[in-house]
């Protein structure tokens, strides 16, 4: 019996989908059976980030409407031997096509076959959010170190705490720019965690490579040397129960970085 984790944030554009894709992939790298579920019906893009868009035949709404079997709709990620699957959202319906009860049944079904179900939640606090949260056992809230995003995270945490059957949510601070944080131009990690007062499960630096990776449909965790990749891998290991210290947030030093690249290049 696996566990379902919903990735949510309230505010849009903070990196929910990227985080879902990378945590899911990182868990698969650890040898777990993972199913990614995109609940952003009408605005799906987890499939794009995973590079699986053109293999979609059926989607979540088809499964719920009974037009296909659950296993027919699951898209297998060829990079992993039978470990990573995606249940894509529909692009043609909207969020009202699914009810929270149906979602819960669906996720409960998936929990029989997979170790982890990663549910990518849409932005907002309406129907789509309610659907995404319905089947989840755990929740991870993604925020950026900026006031508006933290405010929305606070709202979502309040709602998740009222939700029954979900463990207290944990926090990922995404898109950290260490030089801005150092100068005090950005909320720092301690400030955000103290404000939201929930457990911090990871911090991820803002890295250009993440965007490149998303565009090419290769989650950044597949690149073992990137700092954002290491951050996501660490989050996955913390989900598995390991205790790993947080990364230090030194601004990337081109000198050192080049040296490392050279070192690997020579090797």
């Amino acid at each position, binding site marked *: 019996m696996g566990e379902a984790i919903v990735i949510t944030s309230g505010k849009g554009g903070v990196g929910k989908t990227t985080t879902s894709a990378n945590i899911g992939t990182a868990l698969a790298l650890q040898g777990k059976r993972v199913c990614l579920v995109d609940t952003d019906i009408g605005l799906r893009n987890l499939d794009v980030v995973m590079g699986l868009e053109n293999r979609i035949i059926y989607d979540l709404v088809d499964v719920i409407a009974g037009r296909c079997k659950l296993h027919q709709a699951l898209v297998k990620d060829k990079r992993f031997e039978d470990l990573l699957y995606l249940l894509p959202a529909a692009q043609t319906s909207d969020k009202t096509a699914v009810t929270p009860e149906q979602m819960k049944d669906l996720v409960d079904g998936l929990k029989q076959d997979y170790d982890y179900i990663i549910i990518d939640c849409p932005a907002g606090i309406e129907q789509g959010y309610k659907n995404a949260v319905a089947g989840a056992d755990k929740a991870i809230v993604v925020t950026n170190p900026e006031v508006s995003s933290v405010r929305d995270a*606070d*709202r979502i945490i309040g709602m998740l705490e009222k939700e029954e059957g979900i463990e207290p949510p944990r926090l990922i601070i995404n898109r950290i720019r260490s030089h801005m944080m150092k100068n005090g131009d950005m909320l720092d990690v301690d400030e955000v965690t103290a404000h939201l007062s929930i457990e911090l499960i990871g911090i991820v630096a803002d890295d250009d490579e993440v965007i490149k990776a998303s565009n090419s449909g290769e989650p950044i965790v597949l690149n073992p040397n990137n700092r954002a990749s290491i951050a996501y891998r660490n989050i996955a290991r913390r989900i598995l129960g390991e205790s790993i210290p947080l990364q230090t947030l030194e601004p990337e030093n081109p000198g050192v970085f080049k040296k490392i690249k050279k070192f690997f290049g020579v090797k």
Partner: protein
Amino acid sequence: MKKLQNVTIRGTKEGLTLHLNDSCSFEELKKELQWKLSETSRLHDGNQLIKVNVQVGNRYLTEQHADELEELISQKKNFIVDSIASNVMTKEEVAKMKQEQEIVSVTGIVRSGQVLKVPGDLLLIGDVNPGGTVMAGGNIFIMGVLKGIAHAGCFGNSEAIIAASVMKPSQLRISKHINRAPDHYDEEESKEMECAFINEDNQMMIDKLQVLMHIRPNLTRLERGR
């Protein structure tokens, strides 16, 4: 008509006290009151206003009955009703009164979009985050950081106060008074606990906690042990 004394009138230093019988019907009572009052108004003929205290004993008065009595008495010029006292209250009134005098303690964080409302005093052990609201019919005490909105005396009690360990509210409201936070808080934050209250000039003031015992001595509810 003069079989029973349903209405007794006594003069006191403060004015008049009307004792109304609680075992006759209300209609009977009104009739006799009218008759008695028309008699007495002949006795008091001056321009001086006379305060009237009404004691209705063990009769339960609805608001409508109380209004009728008051109207009846005020018809006689220079009579003003000072108070109407009854020994009887309904269960709901008692429950409401009890709730309004209770301190409700809550631990937790009031997050953005959440509203915590209590009929009496509120003791919150935790923070109020920006966008969160706490409301109380009475006073609000916060052991934590107040960054959201606090509304004390929300049913119209401007004696109510708001106290917090760290006062950084986005808005403070007491009864009908609203005060907005400064646009920026000073970098060096004050380490003192603070409280907000309405002063004699109807202005909202924020001061250190220690002034409370002088401006709101009735906040002390210690009865035994003195």
